[in-house]
């Protein structure tokens, strides 16, 4: 528990006391929820009560009961088991996409912000071209070219987020590069690479991490949306978006087929939103990542 010393002397500044506290609480809650979901997703083969593709003809559209707490779907498959496996796919696709985008965006943003001039123009203008299309449309363009599938969905999401993350890295690099310690390192004779890796990058990463966690929330929604359209993860692999598409026609008779996968998406998205919002308040108060 940290304590904030009361200001001594000088003008009295009204400090919004609840802020640091709220942000920490956001991050802890988000990480806790995400942790539970991630463990459930990873351990799906161990904890799922039934196979995700096991068809039980007698249980077609069966209502929730003790053996099937979330009920059964159109083919008599256990909804709880499918939600657990679907969560696996959704988290895997969205986290892979955001990780890939971050790993590529960081060096580009770093180079654009640090070297400036022509390097900056070349990198920024090229990446800006990607932002010509709205995100969903760009994802669909990719899928139109490469065909549907979870790998393509992950790639499409990564491409969409690449320019956003690179832009954040560039602006935060611009700020850090102006610091005296960077100049000092250069004056001591350190090469560009050494300065970038040891001095600029570690200090400029904060806003990118914030943005990446915010984008993970959107990545989950995008993945679910694409799978809902039948353009993301392909059956029989269970995915949360795909489950929602399957249950669309039986919504009124068997709402549990639609309610539970949706709640799983909402909780997962919420956990990333909480982490992102909490991190933003503590690490990026100036709003570079916005």
């Amino acid at each position, binding site marked *: 528990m940290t304590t904030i010393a009361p200001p001594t002397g000088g003008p009295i500044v009204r400090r919004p006391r609840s802020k640091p506290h709220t942000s920490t609480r956001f991050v802890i809650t988000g990480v806790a929820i995400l942790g539970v979901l991630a463990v459930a997703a990873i351990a799906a083969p161990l904890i799922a009560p039934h196979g995700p593709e096991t068809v039980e003809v007698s249980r077609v559209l069966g209502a929730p009961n003790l053996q099937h707490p979330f009920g059964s779907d159109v083919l008599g498959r256990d909804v709880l088991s499918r939600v657990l496996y679907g969560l696996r796919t959704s988290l895997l696709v969205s986290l892979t996409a955001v990780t890939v985008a971050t790993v590529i965006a960081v060096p580009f943003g770093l180079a654009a912000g640090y070297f400036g001039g022509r390097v900056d123009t070349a990198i920024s203008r090229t990446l800006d071209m990607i932002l010509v299309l709205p995100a969903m*449309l760009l994802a669909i363009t990719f899928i139109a070219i490469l065909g549907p599938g979870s790998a393509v969905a992950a790639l499409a999401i990564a491409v969409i987020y690449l320019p956003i993350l690179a832009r954040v890295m560039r602006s935060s690099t611009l700020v850090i590069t102006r610091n005296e310690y960077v100049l000092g390192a250069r004056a001591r004779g350190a090469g560009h690479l050494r300065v970038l890796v040891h001095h600029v990058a570690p200090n400029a990463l904060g806003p990118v991490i914030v943005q990446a966690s915010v984008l993970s929330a959107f990545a989950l929604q995008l993945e679910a949306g694409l799978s809902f359209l039948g353009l993301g993860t392909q059956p029989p692999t269970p995915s949360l978006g795909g489950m929602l598409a399957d249950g669309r026609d039986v919504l009124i008779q068997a709402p549990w087929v639609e309610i539970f996968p949706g709640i799983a998406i909402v909780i997962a998205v919420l956990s990333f939103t909480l982490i992102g919002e909490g991190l933003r308040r503590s690490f990026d108060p100036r709003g570079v990542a916005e």
Partner: protein
Amino acid sequence: MSSRLQFVIRRILLTVPVLFAMSVIVFLIIRLVPGDPVRTMLGFRATAANVIELRHRLGLDQNLLQQYVNWISALLRGDLGSDIVSHAPLSELLAQRLPVTFELTALSMLLAIAIGIPLGIRAATGGRWVKRLTEGFVVFGISIPDFWLGIMLVLIFTGSLALLPPSGYVSFAVDPLQNLRYMTLPVLTLAIGEAAYILRTTRSAVTSVLDRPHMIFLRAKGISQRRMISGHALRNAAPAIVTVIGIQVGVLLGGAIIVETLFALPGVGRLIVTAINQRNYPTVQMGILAIAATFIVVSLITDLLVGWLDPRVADGSAT
């Protein structure tokens, strides 16, 4: 030439490279398909003669630069090609489909603005409970995927209450009242999430304006809270709000693709999704082009509007 006019001309000229980039992306869609796109389109039953014929019709037997020049000049003449499944001219198809997408997007945005801006102002000026409630609305509005929200709305309004039709469409020209009945659920689906974003932007824009010295001065002069908000704070916050609304139109156009599929609305989004599944590339291309071009025009209007609302932007003196 006045600096305002320069701003307008510069901004319009800036659209040219953007349109060019978009045209290249759309042009490449069919050309980047791995393997032979014509064979993929026609399926395994296609004869060699069919393949050659379609390849020639799509101009895929020329060199890439020649293909682009032909494609873009046909486009500028208004020749968008035809759908390879129904053989209907794409210009006709889009003329039927675009109004549906435009109606959905415009109504959703209007509703989102009608909810988001007043609540955003309340959130910036209200007490602790107002702030908490609006914060809750923002977090949930952003976290709930719009299509799931749509499904839940169907469950409530057609399942339990039996008030509204779950899916389908009647043209506004045929029966305005029925049209709005069919549009209610899709519009609500898109608008609720969108309202959360507009609320958040309005809240932070108004909050930051209220902290400025001239607002403190106005308060000291004894001007009522109502007049301060409507006459001064909102005017200063408007450029930020308008910018976000412009960006969010793109998000809505993307969301429309899902919502049209969910509610079986015959818009461009559903056209694209169906065309992708049929490997009907010319239709995919033109559908994407239509939505992207709409987004680019909206961005242009937004930027010009921001320049008009905040003359410092147009004068180039804004930081």
